[in-house]
């Protein structure tokens, strides 16, 4: 690869990644050389600035035609663009939370890492979003995972934090191995790791025998990646890790990391199996055949998430299960493989980003103030801080999917997908709606605490700026997306052109 070729690449399309990378590297160095007594909070702000810059850069290229560099290992298409917005936006908000995160004990000397590891994780996620090759994809995935392992355990002195990190590593390792094992078969059958190349090869794959092997590969990859979504059967790590990890990290895992997981799944499964004939040329793609497996997983995820959540008393654990359930909802959108699939997934992730981060902002505030993560700590919040209570109320209603909030529109999108097409997923949709009703129990349980129960003490809250900003943005976005969803939908419709360039 000569210098000319290197220069011939239009590196510009990687600008956002470069920004994040540069800042991350810079911060790590600074952290080394800066005297310990200096406050590392500034890192957080720098990081946020970097993300904002990245967003600006990305917005600059919003209408950039599909392009790919480094022999198609990095591609910039509508899909990667719109989803990167979610990743970036999410990380920015998480960093805001992180800045105002003041745990009682555990992470005295590790403030620096705390900030720039978010950035590296984000970098990994972004790479996944726009990688066109199994290798880059895998590397991006690992970059995200490993950074999050450390983040989960960042409170070195805190047993729960350590434990959650440990559990995360072990489960993560297993999942990685499984995924890779599946990928290795795909490579074996095609001799290439480039997604487009693979697709091309498989399209002409004659022998049904291979298709059989591909099916196995599909299952392994899918289950392996289910780990990132915290979808059944690879969901069980989530509650423990979410509970043990520092609240901003939990928020990060439940939003950014999850989104990355969906990006990955869509990317890999769609480009590899979306066009591969199940047996012999001309037959319907494998993906359609495997639809039922996906539906099965989705259903199981929704049921497990919502039902077990009923018994939780720890708010972070509760939200872990709720986030499992939401992964299930999004999987429904994926399973239905309809023409609105991308829209549905994207919008739901966006909505989920805001409502969940907002909720975590409140959780972080309350649990830090009370030094406990029990739901009962929310009792009488309505008396202690009406606005905070109202905000939490809106966010939770949105999570429960009530109209007027983003959550409802997201669900509607998913339903449209589920019911269009030749074989409507009545069962899956019914499970989704039924479990949603189940979820009312615990969501409104929280509201009961906030609004009906008397407060233990009357002390008011002083809300840190970071959290205040996050809350305002999240609540505002939740409501706006709920009442005028086209602010977001149109943006997507206008700039994605139905994601037609996804496979080009």
């Amino acid at each position, binding site marked *: 690869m000569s210098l000319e070729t290197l220069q011939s690449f239009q590196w510009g399309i990687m600008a956002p990644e470069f920004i994040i990378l540069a800042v991350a590297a810079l911060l790590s160095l600074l952290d080394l050389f800066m005297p310990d007594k200096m406050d590392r909070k500034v890192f957080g702000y720098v990081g946020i600035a970097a993300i904002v810059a990245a967003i600006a850069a990305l917005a600059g290229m919003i209408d950039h035609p599909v392009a790919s560099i480094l022999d198609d290992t990095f591609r910039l298409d509508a899909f990667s663009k719109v989803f990167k917005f979610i990743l970036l936006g999410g990380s920015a908000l998480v960093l805001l939370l992180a800045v105002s995160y003041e745990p009682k004990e555990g992470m005295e000397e590790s403030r620096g890492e705390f900030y720039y590891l978010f950035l590296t994780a984000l970098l990994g996620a972004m790479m996944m979003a726009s990688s066109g090759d199994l290798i880059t994809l895998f590397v991006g995935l690992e970059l995200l995972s490993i950074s999050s392992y450390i983040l989960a355990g960042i409170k070195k002195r805190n047993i729960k934090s350590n434990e959650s990190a440990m559990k995360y590593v072990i489960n993560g390792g297993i999942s990685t191995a499984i995924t890779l094992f599946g990928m290795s078969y795909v490579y074996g059958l095609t001799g290439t790791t480039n997604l487009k190349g693979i697709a091309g090869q498989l399209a002409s794959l004659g022998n049904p025998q291979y298709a059989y092997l591909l099916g196995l590969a599909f299952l392994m990859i899918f289950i392996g990646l289910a780990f990132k979504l915290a979808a059944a059967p690879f969901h069980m790590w989530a509650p423990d890790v979410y509970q043990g990890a520092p609240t901003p990290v939990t928020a990060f895992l439940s939003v950014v990391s999850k989104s990355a997981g969906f990006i990955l799944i869509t990317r890999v499964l769609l480009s590899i199996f979306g066009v591969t004939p199940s047996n012999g040329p001309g037959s319907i793609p494998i993906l359609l055949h495997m639809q039922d497996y996906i539906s099965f997983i989705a259903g199981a995820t929704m049921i497990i998430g919502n039902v077990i959540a009923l018994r939780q008393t720890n708010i972070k654990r509760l939200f872990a299960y709720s986030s499992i359930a939401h992964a299930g909802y999004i999987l429904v959108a994926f399973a239905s493989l309809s023409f609105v699939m991308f829209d549905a997934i994207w919008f739901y992730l966006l909505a989920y980003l805001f409502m969940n981060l907002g909720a975590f902002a409140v959780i972080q505030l309350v649990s830090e103030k009370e030094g406990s993560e029990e739901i009962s700590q929310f009792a009488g919040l309505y008396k202690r801080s009406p606005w905070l209570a109202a905000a939490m109320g809106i966010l939770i209603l949105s999570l429960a999917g*009530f109209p007027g909030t983003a959550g409802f529109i997201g669900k509607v999108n998913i*339903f449209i997908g*589920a019911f269009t097409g030749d074989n409507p997923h009545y069962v899956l949709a019914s499970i989704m709606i039924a479990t949603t009703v189940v979820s009312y129990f615990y969501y409104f349980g929280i509201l009961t605490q906030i609004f009906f129960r008397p407060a233990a003490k009357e002390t008011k809250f002083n809300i840190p700026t970071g959290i205040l900003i996050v809350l305002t943005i999240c609540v505002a976005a939740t409501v706006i997306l709920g009442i005028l969803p086209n602010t977001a939908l149109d943006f997507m419709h206008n700039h994605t052109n139905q994601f037609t360039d996804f496979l080009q």
Partner: protein
Amino acid sequence: MSLSSVLSILVFSPLLGVTVLAFMKNTQEKAIKIVGLLATLPALLLALACYFHYQAGKDLGDFSVKANWINFVGDKKYFHVAYELGLNGLSLIMVVLTAIIATLAAVASMHIKKEWKGYFMLFLLLETGMLGVFTSLNLILFFIFFEVTLVPMFFLIGKWGYFEKEKAAFSFLIYNGLGSAILLIVIMVLFAKTGTSNIHDLQQIVNAAKSPLSGSVKMGLLIALLIAFGVKLPIFPLHSWMLRVHVQAPPSIVMIHSGILLKIGAFGLIRFAMGIFPEQFKDVAGVLAFLGVINLLYGAFLAFIQKDFKMVLAYSSISHMGIVLIGIGALNATGIQGAIFQVVSHGLISALLFFLVGVFYERTDTSLIENLGGLAKGMPLAAGFLLAGAMASLGLPGMSGFVSEFMAFLGLFKDMPVLAAVGTIGIIMTAAYLLRAVLGMTFGQAHREFAGTMDLKGAEFVPVLTLMFLIVLIGVYPSVLSSPLKTALETIMLGLGG
């Protein structure tokens, strides 16, 4: 103010009150109550204006408003949800009813003891939801308003209710949540299959020669709709939630609940179930009528042995909703008009009765029949109105109850005389349980401790007299309802091919 903006103002005017209240102190009780009351007036005035506009022979179409709102898919042809409000005879009546009862309930809310600010904010939000439900011209908009009524009710019951309020709130939430969930599925299937959620378009597309929905799917959807609205109405055996609500919620809220919210079920049945799936509806009408008779008798018999007057009224609501079902199940103009009349009439009557329950409870701190008794001595006026309300409720001619009951049965007798004859037992039972309860409360020896209880006073006369007046008006001169209904009814019958 152009006519097309009337409905939007009508529906959202209560929110103005909400915003005002948001910036008031919870301690200014008087001011809050006044603002809350005033905020219900614009809707009332506009609703009446619409009514007279229509009675003056003008077209209700003037009011309909349509604006592009959501389009879920990039291309501009399908999957739009427009913001579209409009009225027909039926919804006009419901809107007027809602506005009236909401205002009166606001008056009744003067008895609320705590947290006035939050109470009235939710109360007004609830009103907006109800008004929206009746005016929205497309299913998704309808659903949104439908759910909007859910949340405020949850809080109003759960915070301002009586002893088992939280339990009641949750069973309200879960039952209705389930109902609306099923409703949502139906709506979504229709939306996904036809690409539109506009009621009128749906009627066209679904019943077109080559409809995108197979007959069996339509039947499935219809049954789902029946269940969804059956929870709301409620149809036996989906009723246990509303008993709790009736007993636990504050009377002013029960006025709204049994006065209007239950009626959304009937409204939905007529407007959507019957409107969108007329062919299939014909097949299930018989079943509905049968269920109606069951409701009627079941409620009546159970009301006969209740100790708490609220429970009597709760079961009597079930019983009276049975009459609505009977009318709908009769599937002829007479029956359906009877059903609609019953919806309105029961709305007024139950509002009146529950207001009086509130009055009694406020004075005596009990609603148990045997703890009361002889109230006619201490508070003759209230007792008299209670008796009058009971008479209206048991279908005394000259009051609204009779007209609706009569028409419903008249309709049912046409095709299913035997079933109807069985149903008439309900008429006797109604008299039996209502007299038992009301005479038990007001007649007989007066209790010593209620000797000095104060009779109706001041503002309390407003709801009582208004409601009584309307009840008698409809009973004596039913055309006030039937003439606006005319066209709407014809449309329905046209859809049914009858």
